[in-house]
Structures are given as structure tokens and as C-alpha cells.
């Protein structure tokens, strides 16, 4: 352990290259979708979809598909569909319904993980699904990852203005003829895909951090949606790379001398940035009382 910021071999390590690339791609996509999650106050839905990713990931292992990204994606999409179907308008009822779906999904996850560990020799499968596997990412999955990410980004790009307005004020959007339900459904699909991607990076259970952390931080720094999205993407990439770097450096850190989990380090970095954004000095630069609605026309 040399105590340098960039431990030797960091820039030449193939696994690190992959991790940096995948991490950056996922961070950008998560940020762009996550902005709306925060604006729509749907953190619970996002978190539930992430947890449901556990079900999908474990199911895919059971079926012999070694790359969990499809499992994550399909489970999240089904979850999003169910939540939309239960489509209750009132927030408390929606939370209850989301919780019930989540309970069933996690019950299934319990079963699949159990069957995974007893049927095959993949012992570390729970860890991979729950907490990510960035350093052992299979590059053959990269095209699938990018494809799914592109779909998510496309959905957001195409519906950007409509999504923004209906997130801030559904009544106003409906009055202007925007198909609020349709836009909401498209957004849920994008959310499911983004969650699946984040699950690949830092695990199903921690995926929420990448989805809402950088956007929440960005929204503390600026109220203009476009700028917030760019800022969130930048913060996402920065924290992911920081986490990867620290994970690599941590190989010889105490107490166990085999490295700290990269997922934890990324989450910690995201949280640290969020706390930094709370600093009064930075806060003074934005007028907190300005509602987001007032700045939809930058």
C-alpha cells in the first residue's frame, strides 16, 4: 500500500476500464431519469423497483442466464406495470399497493435466492444481485446495457417537456392536452430500465442511491431542470469514478485486506456530495423558495 491517490496499476487494469465505462454510462442514464423521480416524489416507487430487481436477478440466475441485467430489467418492468395497474391516484393508497407488490416480489426473491444457492454452485450470487458486481462485469453484456440505456434516454428525451410539466402540475398538463397517464407510463418504463442498469452497477438494493442521490444533490444547487440534469449526470459520473478509485485503492486497507465493496464506496460518495450541497454557502446561491414550476422556461 503506497498511500497514493492512484495506486499502481489503476489506469492499466482492464477490469477498472470496464468499471469506469459502465459506471459512467449508468450514472448518466440514472441521473437523467432520476431527476424526474425526485421531482415527482416517487422515491419509494424507485426504491421498490430496485428491490424488485432482486427478484429478477435471482430468477435469471436460476434460469441459467448469467447476466442479471435482463432479469433486473424484466422484473422492474413487471413491477412498474403492476404499480401502474394498481394505478390508484391517492398517494397513501398507492404507497400501500406498492408495498404489497414489493412484499410479494421480495418473497419470490427469497425463494429464488434459496434455490440459486442450493441448486447451483454459485455461492456469491446473492451478493452480486443485492450489492453489485462492477469489477466482475461481463463485457459481453455491454451492448445490452447500452441498448436498454438508450431506450430509457430516448423515452425521456422524447417526452421531456410533457414529462416536466406533468411532473410539476398534472392538472395544468391535463388542461393543456398532455396525455398525463401515457406520459406517466412511459416514464415508469424509463424508470424501470434505469433502475435495472443501476442495479447492475451497485446492486438491486442500493440502486436507489444512484437514481436519486445525484439528482437530489443537483436540485439543491439549481432549480432549472435542464441544468439540474446536466449537474446530476456530472455528479453521478464523478461519484461513481470516485467510488471505483477508492475501491481499487482499498485493496490493502484494514481490516481485511481484500478491499472494501465498491458499491458501498459509491453510495458513500453520493451521500457525501449530497451533504456538501447542504452547506449554507452553496445554498445561498439558489433561492430555495423559488418553486421549480417558476423556472420551467429557462
Amino acid at each position, binding site marked *: 500500500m503506497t498511500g497514493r491517490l492512484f495506486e499502481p496499476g489503476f489506469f492499466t487494469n482492464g477490469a477498472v476500464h470496464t468499471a469506469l465505462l459502465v459506471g459512467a454510462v449508468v450514472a448518466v442514464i440514472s441521473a437523467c431519469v432520476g431527476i424526474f423521480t*425526485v421531482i415527482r*416524489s416517487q*422515491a*419509494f416507487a*424507485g*426504491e*421498490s423497483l430496485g*428491490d424488485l430487481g432482486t427478484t429478477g436477478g435471482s430468477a435469471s440466475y436460476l434460469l441459467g442466464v448469467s447476466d442479471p441485467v435482463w432479469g433486473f430489467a424484466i422484473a422492474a418492468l413487471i413491477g412498474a406495470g403492476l404499480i401502474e395497474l394498481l394505478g390508484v391516484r391517492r*398517494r*397513501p393508497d398507492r*404507497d*400501500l399497493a*406498492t*408495498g*404489497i*407488490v*414489493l*412484499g*410479494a*416480489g*421480495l*418473497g*419470490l*426473491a*427469497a*425463494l429464488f*435466492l*434459496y434455490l440459486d*444457492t442450493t441448486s447451483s454452485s454459485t*455461492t*456469491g450470487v*446473492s*451478493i452480486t444481485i*443485492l*450489492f453489485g458486481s462492477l469489477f466482475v462485469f461481463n463485457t459481453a453484456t455491454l451492448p445490452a446495457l447500452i441498448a436498454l440505456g438508450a431506450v430509457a434516454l430516448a423515452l425521456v428525451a422524447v417526452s421531456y417537456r410533457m414529462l416536466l410539466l406533468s411532473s410539476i402540475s398534472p392538472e395544468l398538463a391535463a388542461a393543456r392536452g398532455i396525455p398525463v397517464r401515457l406520459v406517466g407510463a412511459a416514464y415508469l418504463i424509463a424508470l424501470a430500465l434505469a433502475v435495472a442498469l443501476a442495479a447492475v452497477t451497485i*446492486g438491486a*438494493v*442500493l440502486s*436507489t*442511491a444512484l437514481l*436519486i*442521490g445525484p439528482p*437530489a444533490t443537483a436540485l439543491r444547487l439549481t432549480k432549472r431542470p435542464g441544468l439540474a440534469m446536466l449537474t446530476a449526470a456530472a455528479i453521478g459520473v464523478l461519484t461513481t469514478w470516485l467510488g471505483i478509485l477508492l475501491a481499487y485503492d482499498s485493496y490493502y486497507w484494514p*481490516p*481485511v485486506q481484500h478491499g*472494501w*465493496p465498491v*458499491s*458501498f464506496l459509491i*453510495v*458513500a460518495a*453520493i*451521500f457525501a456530495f*449530497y451533504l456538501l450541497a447542504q452547506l449554507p454557502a452553496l445554498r445561498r446561491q439558489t433561492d430555495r423558495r423559488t418553486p421549480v414550476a417558476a423556472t420551467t422556461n429557462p
Partner: protein
Amino acid sequence: MVNTWLAATIVAIVAGTIGFFAVLRRSAFAAHALPQGAFAGAACASLLGLSTILGLFVFSILGAISIALLGRRGRHDAVTALTLVLMLGLGALFLSFSVEYAPEIYSLLFGEILGVSRSDLLPITALGAASVLATVVLYRPLLLSSVISDAAEARGLNTRRLELCFLLVMALAISATVPVVGTFLVFSLMIAPAGSARTIATSPLAALALSILIALATVWASIAAAYQTNWPVGFYVGTIGAASYILARTRQTWQSALFKANTGQ
């Protein structure tokens, strides 16, 4: 074996009782978020060689206090989610330091009902009894403030302190129930029976009693099924919970459709 049934019964009573108020007060998110904080506590305790229940207890209480301080909804959604994901990450970190990584995670997340020891039974019973007792004491104020918070304030009830008390009671309940059902599914046991019960029973006491009964039925059926099939208890808890809620909802829709047909609407 007796320990298992005993522990399960206690857990069901606790979850059914606290769950009734969690659903009444629309705290589904807190019921999901608090156990995740507890996860980190259990992992930390395990690392330090201490009792996992102690770790669950301490971190649940800390989590309850932070949620109460940060407020409940709106903008604080993101903060709560972030804090709890951090707790989960910390849990993963602590576990990564220990040797028994994978099996420990599994049992913390999905419960280890079949492995409840006699030494665990005492703290579980004590914590569970404490949470149920506290709920009984707070019954009326909680009910009033959940329904008419303004009038409750006017009568001298401090609703913010009441909210903190309730979260602390939930923390107690979580420390008692997580060792048995796991952090992932404890909230399902809290909200599914209560959610189902409230669609059937019309008065609060009846709904509370029914919530406990449904929780008991869920847990007992899950254990029996788990013994038969060797599949994890958590699977049955989650799916039976969802099934009971869907059944209750269907019955409700059916009844109101019948009512409308009869009254010619």
C-alpha cells in the same frame, strides 16, 4: 420447534398491532425504510461479536429519531431514501469484513425463523411485549391524531412528539420481528394484514383484532408450508400477504358492485 411457533406467534401479534397504526398513519415507507437501517445495525453487531438483536435495536431507534427529525413527506422523501440506502451500504460493508458474508446476509434479509434459539426468545418477547404495550397506551391519542390532527392539537396533544413516539414503537417492533422474518419482509407482515383487515372491519378495535388474526394466520401458514416444502418462510409470508390483500380488495369491489346493483345506481 416449540421456539419457532412461539417466536412466530409473538412476531405476528406485534406486526399485526403496530401494522394497524402504520397503515392508519400512512407510514408504509417508514415501515420499509426502518428495517433497512436495522440491517446495518445487525451487521455491525455481528462484526463486533455482539448480539444481533442489540444491533437491530440501536440502529432502529437511531433511524426512527432521524426520520422524525427529517420530517415525513414531500421533499424529505429523497433524504429518507438516501439515508437508508447508506445504512444498507454500511451493512454490506460491515458484513464484507466478516468471514460469513453470504449466509449472514441471507438470514438478515429474509429471516431465520427455523433457527430461533432459546436465548433469542427472551429479548424478542421483551421487545415485542414492550411495543404492544406502548401501542395500547398510545391507542386513543394515535387514533385521534391520525384522523383529525388539528382537533388533536387543540386538545393539547403534541402531534410531532406523538409521531416520534410511534416511530420509536415501530423501532421496538422491528427489533423483535426482524430476527424471525428478516428485514426485507417484516414490513410486508406489518402492512398486508392491516391493509386487508381495514377493508373488512369497520370499527378500529375490530380492525386491530382482525389485523392480528390475519398476521397470525399468515405466519402459521408460512411456517407449516416452509416445513413441508423446505422453501424459505419469507417467500410464503410475502406471497400470502399479497394474496390476502388482493382477496380483501376483490371482496370489497364485489360488495360495492352488488350494493350499486341492488340500489339501482
